[in-house]
């Protein structure tokens, strides 16, 4: 009977076309508003690296001065001293320090004058920790990290800008008046959000950096920090003094072998702070925090309150649309009490009438879902036009696409419950006589 009722449902779309169109549109608009905001929210709050997010840890160490309030939290970044110490100890399975740089790229071409690119300076572990795919080549070696090698990994966008579709691995490119050898070109990697570097002053959503050079190479070349630098004490005089200071400006990630190693890693950090205390650092009681990826996103407030509010508003709007749909369905089904009477007389029990009309409501949901999908794409287009960072999140995945249709059907069925129940209460004897 399901197929029969489905067929009747599609046929009934043609009945009262104006009423049907109104219902489909009402449902579609509600669905579109909800799904476009939910899509953005889902992408914003989604896990960017689900297979290892529990194992990727940001350690925050409280190196604040003694006179800071007792409840002051550990800063969100790390000093150069701590970053290099932790890197050298290699306690985790993999680890990277990183900071933002602003490299000037000189292509040597007349048609392409030197330009400022975006960049970061991590260690070679960065690429394995974050599972960075490569279009050509690969990361630089551990030796390049240790020896401040002049090597670089570039984005596909920069590669195409400089070399077209050619494989540039092995070529040398000029950055800040120095030659760097290209070891790899990053492939299709669009982490949403850019969780590996949330403290940059740039939006959390957007393209990856164009230039990546070894952390120590960048320090050796005295690349300034393109990001946030927080000095609670004296930053010293000159770059070397700055490196020795307690200024925090480096982001640090550790990849543990297993999420269960987290407590042990915490003990290690505590022990490290203890050692540093003996050297006259860390005047406050031992205080550190570990965050995994999702905790880090939450701590950084990546999903803004505005986005959540928008999603709630959109769901509220959907509710209003649903209430309207209930009214319209009531009108549509009430007009068919005669048919209900006939079907009851011909042997349909109430439960079959219930099924038939609920499926009809579901069919309206399918139509509403299709309209909603079209409108959602329109909504996403509008969201994408807000900014480049929004453009990167305003994409509907296949899952959300199916979820849109499923939500529309579910909504129409929920909206159809009352009208369908009313349809089942029709007394056939009364209807048949009044026909």
């Amino acid at each position: 009977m399901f197929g029969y009722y489905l067929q009747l449902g599609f046929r009934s779309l043609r009945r009262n076309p104006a009423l049907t169109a109104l219902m489909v549109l009402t449902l579609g608009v509600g669905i579109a508003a909800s799904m476009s905001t939910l899509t953005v929210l889902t992408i914003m709050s989604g896990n960017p690296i689900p297979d290892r997010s529990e194992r990727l840890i940001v350690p925050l160490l409280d190196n604040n001065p003694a006179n800071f309030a007792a409840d002051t939290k550990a800063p969100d970044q790390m000093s150069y001293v701590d970053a290099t110490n932790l890197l050298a100890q290699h306690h985790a399975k993999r680890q990277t320090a990183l900071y933002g740089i602003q490299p000037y790229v000189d292509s040597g071409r007349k048609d392409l004058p030197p330009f400022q690119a975006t960049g970061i300076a991590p260690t070679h572990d960065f690429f394995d920790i974050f599972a960075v795919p490569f279009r050509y080549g690969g990361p630089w070696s551990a030796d390049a990290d240790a020896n401040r090698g002049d090597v670089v990994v570039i984005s596909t966008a920069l590669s195409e800008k400089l070399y077209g579709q050619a494989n540039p691995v092995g070529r040398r490119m000029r950055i800040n008046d120095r030659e760097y050898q290209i070891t790899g070109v990053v492939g299709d990697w669009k982490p949403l959000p850019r969780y590996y570097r949330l403290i940059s002053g740039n939006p959390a959503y957007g393209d990856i950096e164009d230039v990546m050079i070894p952390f120590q190479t960048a320090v050796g070349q005295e690349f300034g920090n393109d990001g946030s630098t927080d000095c609670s004490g004296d930053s010293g005089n000159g770059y070397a003094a700055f490196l020795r200071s307690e200024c925090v400006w480096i982001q640090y990630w550790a990849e543990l072998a297993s999420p269960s190693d987290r407590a042990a890693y915490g003990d290690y950090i505590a022990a490290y702070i203890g050692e540093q205390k003996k050297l006259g650092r860390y005047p406050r009681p031992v205080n550190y925090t570990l965050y995994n990826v999702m905790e880090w996103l939450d701590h950084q407030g990546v999903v803004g309150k505005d986005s959540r509010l928008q999603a709630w508003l959109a769901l509220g709007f959907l509710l209003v649309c649903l209430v309207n749909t209930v009214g319209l369905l009531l009108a549509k089904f009430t007009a068919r009490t005669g048919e209900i009477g006939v079907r009851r007389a011909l042997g349909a029990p109430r439960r079959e009438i219930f099924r038939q009309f609920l499926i009809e409501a579901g069919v309206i949901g399918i139509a509403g879902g299709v309209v909603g999908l079209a409108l959602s794409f329109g909504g996403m287009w509008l969201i994408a036009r807000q900014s480049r960072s929004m453009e990167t999140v305003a994409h509907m995945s296949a899952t959300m696409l199916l979820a849109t249709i499923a939500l529309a059907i579910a909504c129409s069925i929920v909206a159809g419950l009352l009208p369908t129940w009313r349809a089942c209460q029709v007394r056939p004897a009364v209807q048949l006589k009044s026909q």
Partner: protein
Amino acid sequence: MLRMQNLSKVYRTHLIETHALRGFDIHVQDGEFVAVTGPSGSGKTTFLNIAGLLEEFTGGDYFLDGVNVQGMDDNARSKLRNEKLGFIFQGFNLIPDLNLFDNVDVPLRYRGFNAAERKRRIDDALGRVGLASRMKHYPAELSGGQQQRVAIARALAGSPKLLLADEPTGNLDSQMARGVMELLEEINEQGTSILMVTHDPELAARAQRNVHIIDGQVSDLLRETNASLAAVAATA
């Protein structure tokens, strides 16, 4: 085929009780063609609705084809209605956006027949009423008489044992009414019992038996007539 004993139907509101049927007794034999007559408001339609399992009754017994219907739930009543009964209404009651084939198909769907069986029965039923060639037409494309023939085909398709007809010719002109009546007689000759409510004495006269309902009770027409005649003679 149909037996009601001391049946009653009371409509209650918080103010009044209306006895639509009381002490109602009737027995329709297999293959019988019974016309039910009576003035408006006498309870004819209530009787037909109860007979058709479309309404519950308040007291008494009702046996349909030997089955006591009292206390049956909606599913069981619907199943019995679908298997044993066919309905023909004054207003035809075809579903306007289904073509003739699909209209006749409705009761067969609820019976659970497979597609081939349904098609065979629809072809046969529409063939019997002379509309086999118009099965793709919609009700609005037919005359009143033709629509009533489709309703008869729909009632017949499930091979019911009893046809319940409520003023089946009430909306038809005399020529069409005659055609429909002949069709009903033919169906009855083939063994289907018919219970027909009508206001038309001519149609009633064509039934094998007439049952007259007055004030919710079956009235013996012959006895009443004799009593009236006796009263007239006495006053003379």
